[in-house]
């Protein structure tokens, strides 16, 4: 047999039909659904009298719109249009008989955190969701990617997706990370190196010692941002850490089924002589704690650098960089460490897991925030409960952080958590686009430890100075 990549293997195991021109129907094992990108899809089913083909493989949870303050089960505490979307999801889940975690359920949270937590996401699966950060699930060695609402409707009706195969790209991070450097710094540094379109047309497999050394949480952080590099999906081969994470989760297989699953999962790796269409290698020890300075996730620099000048760039990026600097209110040549911060946001599907909260709490222990506002939004109700049990919530509260309920919150500011114009935020989320966290708001992306450090000093800060 010809050598295959991990992506090739999962792809081949899921082709339900292939046309002469290579257009395939890819069978979908898990379809995750949230309230913002699904109402029109369910409406489409109703209009055409179609059913959900595999309700058992379809899981819904409201996350984007929901307030993260107490009392949110009462629709009166939501804006009217948000309440309508959440009510529509409630109704669609019930009418079509799909798995559902309503806001009142402790298991509710950001869809990409709930899926793995509940054992819905397993190695070798195909996972889709009407959300670009579905790439997160690739951390389990699953082929996972975002789709549009028309495709959501297509998957609901047929449990397949019309697809052509992407190319294979290998991103290898060799060696060890230095102290203070985390999964977020890896994934931002890769995007900094490849650009936001560098992965377009590819599925990226992340590999190398520094990736193997990451926990499952860290691997999810890395894969989460594959989409920010333009890739269709990011994927990491499963290993003992993966199996251990999955074992015992509510929807993971048990007993003989577990053994059978394990046997297959152990075949899920890229063969030694597999062909790659593109290869990128970074040395783990070269990666520094980074922050973004602009309005594209590729605008990444080590925290020790200065704000760049538009002339440092080439082609269309010159104008884009100038626009970013103007929007961000930054002057070229200023040390990044001198940039003052108003707000700190810790959360999102990139960094809203227990390990992220631990990393931030470690820095915050016994300290006070020096910013106008600081909030922690756990990625799920279960992450929140665990953080309370471990005493992390107290550390955050004592430091002056707001301790919120689970949801997307200020990652995209569809709920009441928004930046004011020109308000500058240190955020652990994944997008620093213009207006992403609120009209005119200025976002600097970084790791949870770096965000915690910024909270303490009131400026962009090198976390290594506080360690």
């Amino acid at each position: 047999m010809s050598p295959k990549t991990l992506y090739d293997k999962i792809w081949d195991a899921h082709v339900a039909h292939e046309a002469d021109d290579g257009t395939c129907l890819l069978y979908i094992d898990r379809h995750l659904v949230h309230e913002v990108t699904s109402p029109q899809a369910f409406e489409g089913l109703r209009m055409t009298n179609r059913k959900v083909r595999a309700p058992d493989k379809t899981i819904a949870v409201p996350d984007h719109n929901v307030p993260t303050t107490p009392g949110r089960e009462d629709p009166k505490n939501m804006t009217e249009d948000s309440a309508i979307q959440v009510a529509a999801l409630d109704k669609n889940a019930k009418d079509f008989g799909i798995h559902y975690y309503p806001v009142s359920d402790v298991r509710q949270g950001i869809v990409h955190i709930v899926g793995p937590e509940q054992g819905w996401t397993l190695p070798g699966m195909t996972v889709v969701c009407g959300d670009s950060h579905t790439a997160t699930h690739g951390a389990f060695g699953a082929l996972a990617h975002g789709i549009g609402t028309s495709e959501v409707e297509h998957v609901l009706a047929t449990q397949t997706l019309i697809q052509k195969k992407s190319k294979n790209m290998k991103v290898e991070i060799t060696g060890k990370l230095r102290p203070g450097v985390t999964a977020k710094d890896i994934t931002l540094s890769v995007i900094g190196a490849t650009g936001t379109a560098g992965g377009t047309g590819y599925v990226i497999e992340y590999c190398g010692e520094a990736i193997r050394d990451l926990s499952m949480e860290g691997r999810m952080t890395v894969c989460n941002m594959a989409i920010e590099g333009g890739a269709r999906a990011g994927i990491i081969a499963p290993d003992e850490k993966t199996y251990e994470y999955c074992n015992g989760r509510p929807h993971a297989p048990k007993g003989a089924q577990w053994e059978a699953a394990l046997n297959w999962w152990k075949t899920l790796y890229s063969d030694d002589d597999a062909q790659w269409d593109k290869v990128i290698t970074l040395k783990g020890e070269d990666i520094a704690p980074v922050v973004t300075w602009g309005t594209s996730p590729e605008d990444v620099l080590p925290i020790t650098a200065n704000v760049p000048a538009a002339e440092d760039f080439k082609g269309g990026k010159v104008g884009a960089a100038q626009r970013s600097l103007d929007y961000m209110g930054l002057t070229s040549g200023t040390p990044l460490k001198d940039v003052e911060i108003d707000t700190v946001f810790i959360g999102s599907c990139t960094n809203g897991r227990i390990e992220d909260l631990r990393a931030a709490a470690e820095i915050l222990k016994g300290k006070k925030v020096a910013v106008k506002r600081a909030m922690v939004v756990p990625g799920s109700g279960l992450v929140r409960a665990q953080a309370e049990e471990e005493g992390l919530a107290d550390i955050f509260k004592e430091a002056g952080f707001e301790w919120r309920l689970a949801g997307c919150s200020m990652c995209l500011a569809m709920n009441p958590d928004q930046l004011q114009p020109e308000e500058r935020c240190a955020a652990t989320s994944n997008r620093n686009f213009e207006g992403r966290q609120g009209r005119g708001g200025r976002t600097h992306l970084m790791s949870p430890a770096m965000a915690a450090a910024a909270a303490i000093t009131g400026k962009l800060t090198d976390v290594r100075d506080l360690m």
Partner: protein
Amino acid sequence: MDKFTTLTGIAAPMPLINIDTDMIIPKQFLKTIKRSGLGVNLFDEMRYDDDGAEIPNFVLNKEAYREAEILVAGDNFGCGSSREHAPWAIKDFGIRCVIAPSFADIFYNNCFKNGILPIALPQDQVDVLMKDAEKGANARMTIDLDTQTVTTSDGETFSFEVDSFKKHCLMNGLDDIGLTMEKAASIDSFEVQAEQARPWV
């Protein structure tokens, strides 16, 4: 779905790179449960000031481009969020074709599901089209999907690539789901075989 065969219309120039879907349609407009009515909010934060008044020098607010049916843009158009509200808003405004050096994957796919043709051309050709678009309302471009060509107002023609299946669906206004359902037997037999191979799924 609406068919797309040929189009002759005004092209609006937007020479920005990395135009993301948050710019195309900011999140406050994602709270709708409908597909229609998003055109007035297309590029909302670039198009209107804080009081909701039009910003005069934004391209789609200029007299020449109010009726634009084509958009010529910079590299990596449609990056970011998967929101299909972006193509819905573009379509609702009246734009049926977007030309750029490259597109983000999900946005590109979403266009075809909504009767919009995204055309990727090399940067130097996009530069020519950008110049042509800058001439304003009298300079009409022509797109022919059948022959896979874009013709400038001066008659210069460029060929573009498009996947044959996507082209077929767009030219005939075909509904993907209906097409896939014709292959239900393949899906059924796949499910039977997958259930044996991976019963835990």
